[in-house]
């Protein structure tokens, strides 16, 4: 969401030292940083609600006669690891960017950029893995409508993958900016992307456990 | 039974209309459709939910899935030339399907591919016409009293049921046929397929609950061949 603001100041360019802006502007800047952080949390809350709704749907559906068992493709375990790893690499990027350095020079941003690049590759790997899992199920003749369990599996995994893809798009943007390090970058954009990305990992772990125990 | 008779006459009339084309005088296939065994007893239709229709009948109307006549004759059987005859162009006259007293008149309506089908509502209540074809396009329309007749066409040959979504007991059948050589048996179960040019034909008889039977017949000159069909009746 901060891309709003970020793109706004693309005209601010070059490695010139940050100007001391008026106190007012500084305040406003800080306010918008805070706003985008609240924004991301509110957004995550909404996402949580939606998946909670799906979960309750699952609990309702569980009781019914045609509820069976679904053997999850083993690749999901690998995918889980990949996604968790991506969470860690993004944390590395954050450390590289804000960890100790007070001012970032091209080197730190490049370093961070590379970490982000790794993260988004892992993210893509996760999505590919999920896709693979679906193919495996198809191969077993288990489709979306085969039984309620498969319906829920495809539904939950697909929606989660969709959210991950959104994250990946933002990561692409981030990596671009960091590696071409002559561009400004709002701190909140990076922070919030990190929050979102970590949340996706947590959400996946939850969904995975749900599928393991219920489907 | 009067409405039934009407139905029979009406159908025959229509089929007569349909065959009265410019085709040269040829042979005729005629015969009788009968059943053996005991057919299911038709239950009376309870129309109490539709007073405007219920009050039109002194004695309860029976369901029309199996209508039998004297001498085990079987009515509402579509007899048509299913092979051997060329496809005929649709006649200009419209086949009329009437809704009267919350029943379909006729119960089985046979007409040709692309022939105009005219659906009329003579009742004081709103009807819904929902034919359930498999090959043709399916539609589902309501017809409040006082609205103009619905005009439709079917472009594929097919026999399928038609129902009223408002009145569950209202069920009929549409027989969309390729050529003009067909008849629907009425009271007495007899039928005639006139004006068949010499050749070898397959005659098919279709009944909505007893299924289909076919017989081959060869016509040479202007003779009259007799073909009878006997269906096996089911008690349930």
């Amino acid at each position, binding site marked *: 969401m901060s891309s709003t603001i970020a793109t*706004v100041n693309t005209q601010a360019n070059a*490695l010139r030292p940050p100007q001391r*802006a008026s106190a007012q*502007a500084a305040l406003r800047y800080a306010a*918008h940083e*805070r706003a985008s952080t609240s924004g991301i949390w509110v957004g995550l809350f*909404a996402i949580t609600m939606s998946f909670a709704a799906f979960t*309750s749907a699952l609990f309702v559906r569980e009781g019914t006669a045609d509820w069976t068992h679904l053997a999850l493709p083993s690749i999901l375990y690998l995918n889980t690891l990949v996604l968790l790893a991506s969470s860690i690499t993004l944390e590395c990027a954050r450390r590289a960017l804000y960890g100790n350095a007070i001012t970032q020079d091209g080197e730190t941003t490049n370093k961070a950029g590379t970490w982000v690049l790794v993260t988004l590759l892992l993210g893509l790997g996760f999505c590919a893995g999920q896709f693979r899992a679906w193919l495996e199920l198809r191969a077993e003749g288990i489709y979306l409508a085969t039984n309620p369990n498969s319906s829920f599996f495809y539904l939950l995994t697909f929606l989660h993958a969709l959210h991950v893809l959104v994250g990946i798009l933002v990561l692409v943007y981030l990596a671009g900016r960091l590696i071409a390090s002559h561009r400004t970058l709002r701190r909140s954009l990076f922070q919030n992307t990190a929050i979102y990305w970590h949340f996706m990992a947590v959400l996946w772990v939850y969904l995975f456990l749900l599928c393991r125990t219920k489907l | 039974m009067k409405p039934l008779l009407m139905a029979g006459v009406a159908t025959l009339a229509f089929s007569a209309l349909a065959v009265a084309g410019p085709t040269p005088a040829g042979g005729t296939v005629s015969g009788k459709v009968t059943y053996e065994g005991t057919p299911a007893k038709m239950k009376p239709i309870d129309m109490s939910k539709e007073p405007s229709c219920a009050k039109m009948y002194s004695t309860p109307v029976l369901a029309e899935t199996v209508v039998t006549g004297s001498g085990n004759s079987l009515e509402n059987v579509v007899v048509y030339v299913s092979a051997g005859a060329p496809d005929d162009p649709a006649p200009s006259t419209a086949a009329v399907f009437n809704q009267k007293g919350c029943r379909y008149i006729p119960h089985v309506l046979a007409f040709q591919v692309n022939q105009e089908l005219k659906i009329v509502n003579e009742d004081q209540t*709103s009807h819904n016409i929902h034919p359930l074809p498999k090959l043709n396009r399916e539609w589902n329309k309501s017809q409040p009293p006082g609205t103009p007749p619905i005009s439709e066409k079917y472009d594929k040959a097919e026999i399928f049921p038609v129902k009223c*979504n408002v009145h569950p007991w209202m069920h009929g059948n549409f027989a969309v046929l390729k050529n003009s050589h067909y008849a629907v048996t009425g009271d007495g179960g007899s039928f005639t397929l006139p004006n068949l040019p010499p050749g070898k034909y397959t005659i098919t008889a279709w009944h909505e609950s007893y299924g289909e039977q076919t017989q081959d017949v060869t016509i040479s000159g202007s003779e009259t061949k007799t073909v009878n069909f006997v269906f096996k009746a089911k008690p349930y």
Partner: protein
Amino acid sequence: MTDGSVQQAHVHAPPQGFIRKYIFSLDHKIIGKQYYGLALIAVFTGMVLSWLMRIHMVWPTAKIPLLEHLSSAGAPGGIITPEYYLSLMTMHGTLMVFFVLTNAPFAAFGNYFLPIQIGAEDMAFPRFNMMSFWTTFLAWAVLMLAFFIPDGPPIAGWTSYAPLSAVGKDAGPGMEWGMSLWGLSIAIFCIASLLGALNFIATTLDLRAKGMTLMRMPLCTWAWFITSCIALLAFAVLLPACILLILDRHFGTSFYIPAGLVVSDRLQPHSGGSPLLWQHLFWFFGHPEVYIAILPSMGIVSHVLMNSLRKPLLSAKVVIYSMMSIGFLSYMVWGHHMFLSGMNPMSALAFSFPTLTITIPATVLTLIWLGSLYGSNLQINSASLFALGFISMFVAGGVSGFFLAQPSIDIYLHATYFVVGHFHMVMGVASLFGVFAGTYFWFPKMTGRMMNETLGKLHFWITFVGAYCIFMPFHYLGLIGNVRRYQSFVDDYMQPYLPVHKFMTIAALITGAAQFIFLYNLIYSRFKGKVAPINPWNATSLEWSIPSPPPWNNFGDKHPVVYHDPYQYGVKGSQGDFVMQDSPEQVVPASGD
């Protein structure tokens, strides 16, 4: 350079060119107006649909000439078919609930005034703001498309109960593509509303001007804030519900469709689904939706009322807390829509009590409004008339809630006209009165011109009396067991009461016609109205401290600082009996208080 070029942050230059200025504008004010415009189109469409329904109901064989050409399938020879009646009903409900009652009081006014009232120069995420409007527009377009497909609009009602809504074309005309468009449209609408709510919350939390503490926010800002919190939850649940519905309809899943259903002589290829699941998900959204519609109007009415009373509200805090508790309780009561739907009868009791409890904060609000009237110096104008009308309507619609909240009475009144009367008054008319009050009050600020008072008052009188004439009889008919959603009354039982229905229809036609006065007033005043000063109503909140209409960045370069609570009326101020929120002067209570 993470904080490079700070002062550029968000200071976007005034937009250039028609498209960026008025169509894909990032300016919350333009977006607010766009929402208002969309709501206006939707409300008039919905109104005409209700006219057609009322006319058909009392004159079933009436030939409506124009309709014959608009929808030859729905109205052959101009006579509305039963399914087309249900289509009209479904579209009326959907348009009104989603595109009017959610858009007008919340999205439209909220977008325009929330940032100004808290002293911000725009929403937190202008691009999201623009997206949420255009997504809403898309949702509307998709819904309206249903009118123009051969299949026609859906016939499942705005609640779209499964399995009727889920089994597809066998369920009847309009249930093939019409229904799918409905599901798609609502899903899109959910996404739009989520974006909007997110924006409102972040803006309110973080973009308040110096000195604008939460408790100093005007009541309508509070209402919008609380509403967006409700909306966030509600639409986040409706979206999954719609997704499941679409899956059932087009991908052969069985979330809502149980086994062994025979629809139109066809055995449905589904198994194990639960129709109640849809009802639970839908009403978990559906009941809070009622408060999404009414809360903003409560806020607007309080805001307007304080201004015309010329004295502070008895207690703004109490109003805020009441609205909060209403919002909170609204999530524990959805089951009262399902008393008779086969839930465990015990749970009916569990849902009944919180429902009844909601009447406490509602009553508190009403009494606060009434109590504030006491000893005031009430100024009568179109805005305050509608505000007072709101109170009257809110009470009228509210008390009937008492009946429906009790399962035992619901056994008799459920799905009768009593219910229809109830929610039309409290959710429909009442919140629309809030919108009217807001319009007459804020129009000068939004357009820089005053609205015509005479027309405004005329509009009020017809609408106020008319609304009672239409919706009171609904309650009476409910008492004699007049079932809702019937296109005509075929049974003898209803015959004696047809005159009542005729009366309601005529009232509806007149009241509806009166809305064109309002429309005319809007358009006329927009261009010909007399020019509005900055603060025509001697009001106190921030929106009245800036030019009418406000410049593109609201406060220009001056950064408002807030010194007072929002409603400093009835005091000795330098400009009169009030002190603006942003004026540093001391508040001296007026004598004789």
